[in-house]
């Protein structure tokens, strides 16, 4: 029973984080059609900003987290405006530019913070027990905040005028333009939201793991896996595949070895590309 609960709790934790990371990744692809390889760098930036505000400057947790997320969002918008916008239609350029930016971010973190991991203290102390399984409030908070963030995005997209304009651009750019929507503003906002989501994940993960310069690669690979498995551009698909990935990795880690979880998503990618290339919930190509 405790094995099952371990997998349930840890799988939900990681599934929630993967959801948070990949929803932003798939959003920017679905709206602007770009694969943003700097997405993992926003996650890293969120973690380091959280560390800086909380641990170095001693700013209260909630304010630090908000500032870290806002800072990451602004960084995302800056990247879009300065580096992506001039050559947005050239996908190869965007890929290379965002990769270069990710590497640059890593080097900047290395220079300012050094190669060692930086620890952020738990935001909340305490625990509860599910049977024999101890669940810290920090992990609970991470799960809850992940879902609140994704939920907030959902509500924003579905119910607000600005959110609907994002949807409109994603569905049909020409029609959206005819309706008076300015696509560049939509892209800018979407990038800001995408970066904010990644930054939120970074802020939440820092107390559980650590902030370290090479941490940007891990969420990028996971985001890739999630959107390929779930279906490019599908938010529902991203959520479903993120949770599946979280549970299956935890299952392997718990029952087999900590060395094999990465094989799960690699095998899943291959299977999906062979058997159902559009992903679990992606639309069939016309």
């Amino acid at each position, binding site marked *: 029973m*405790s*094995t099952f609960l*371990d*997998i349930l709790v*840890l799988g939900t934790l*990681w599934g929630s984080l993967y959801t948070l990371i990949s929803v932003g990744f798939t959003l920017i692809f679905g709206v602007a059609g770009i694969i943003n390889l700097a997405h993992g760098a926003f996650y890293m930036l969120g973690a380091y900003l959280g560390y800086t505000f909380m641990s170095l400057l001693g700013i209260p947790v909630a304010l630090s987290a908000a500032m870290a997320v806002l800072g990451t969002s602004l960084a995302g918008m800056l990247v879009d405006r300065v580096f992506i916008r001039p050559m947005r239609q050239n996908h190869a350029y965007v890929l290379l530019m965002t990769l270069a930016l990710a590497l640059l971010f890593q080097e900047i973190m290395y220079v300012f913070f*050094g*190669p*060692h*991991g*930086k*620890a*952020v*203290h*738990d935001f909340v102390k305490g*625990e509860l027990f599910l049977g*024999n*399984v*101890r669940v*810290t409030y920090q*992990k609970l908070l991470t799960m809850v905040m992940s879902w609140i963030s994704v939920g907030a995005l959902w509500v924003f997209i579905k119910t607000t005028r600005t959110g609907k304009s994002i949807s409109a651009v994603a569905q049909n750019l020409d029609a959206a333009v005819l309706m008076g929507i300015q696509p560049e503003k939509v892209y800018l906002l979407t990038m800001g939201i995408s970066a904010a989501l990644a930054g939120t994940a970074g802020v939440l993960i820092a*107390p*559980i*793991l*650590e902030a*370290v310069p090479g941490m940007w690669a*891990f969420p990028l690979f996971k985001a890739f896996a999630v959107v390929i498995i779930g279906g490019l551009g599908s938010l529902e698909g991203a959520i479903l595949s993120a949770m599946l990935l979280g549970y299956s990795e*935890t299952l392997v*880690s*718990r*029952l087999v*070895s*900590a*060395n094999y*979880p990465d094989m799960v998503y690699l095998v899943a990618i291959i299977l999906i590309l062979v058997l159902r290339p559009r992903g679990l919930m992606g639309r069939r190509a016309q």
Partner: protein
Amino acid sequence: MRQGFKHKGVIIQKGGTAMRMKVFLIFTMGLFLALSFQPSQAANRDFDKASTIRIGSLGPVQLPQGQGIHNAAKMAVEEINQAGGIHGKKLELFIGDTEGKPEKGITAMKKLVLEDKVDVLIGCYSSGVALAIQPYLPQYQIVHMATGTASIDLTNNVKKEYEKYKYFFRNMINSDIRQQKWAAKFLVEFVHKKLGYKKIAILAENAKWVHQYAPALKKDVEDAGLEVVFYEMFDVDVKDFSPTFAAIKGKGAQWIAQIVSHAASIPLVKAWQDSQSAPMGLCDVQGMDSKFWEMTGGKCLGEITYNFIARAPLTEKTIPMWDKYVKLFGTNPVYTTGFTYDGVYMFAEVIKQKKSLKSKDIIEGLEKISYKGVLHPEIGFDKETHDLLEGRYVMPMVQWQEGGKQVVVWPEQFKTGEFIPPPWWKK
């Protein structure tokens, strides 16, 4: 096409594309050979003509292990100079940043040898880096005393090909045999016999220095009657240890023997503390750092790790050296510190005795030395392997206790306090 001339029936083209290509190739090869040729006269200087004695210190500047090497070398050099140097000659220290990577280590070593023209090398964290550097030592005929590398391959090379690798000495405790034997001794004598625990989990990183260590440790403790209920060698890139500790808890482990150096210690310790699985103690290299308490937000409370230096009377020199180091650098010594500090002094003693900077004299001197250092009263090297002599070391087991204190809990003769199990642990 230019006209050539006939010589003995062979037409020789003067000038022309083919000729220019040949000249270019010959020039390039010559240039390549000239640049490749590295004279070995950088070391082996004439002692009488040398105005100073140059020590090259190798280590990653950004990591605590490397800082421990460079700081220790600096402290020892300054002390020796304040005492008058070696026969009136001052020591100079040069730093080479290896970044903890083999290719950077080679570059750093070459810079020290060829540009700074050091007489001897000390330091070097990471066996991978030391193995990369080792083949260059006979080329430059320079002695290297490694003080942060544990793999037995380094000293096995000396034994197998003495003439080639005689320039290498290790003032550190090799992991494959000595650290492993000490670890087994701790688990049997302290964890099993004193605390009464039998079910052990071994959680080791999959790195070069552990490849022989972990399996041998498992065998030794099982032979002594302990039960290894969980055994894993995890990839150094693993960051999420929660499922692992959940599995360990599920197996009913009463003690976790961690063996970690290169892997992410902070997430490991955090996951351990959160899991409340079992007390943990054996080897966590990052956990030796005095800043580790702060880095983990106190989540290392209760963790034990062996260290190669502690604020305990390993010799009468240990505590004064420790306190001076803390005053100078604002942080505790790490495991590379003591070895490097003693190493610089050993070089100084040998050079002083021999009045020579020739590597063959330094090698001869080091092979015969018995030095009273901060880590042991009789430090010496095996003549065949140039490894630290058996028994000439202590590895105090240090526990993190409330308030960020590091307390030596074993062996008995060096204890500075009692073992305190983690607050959540019910035996």
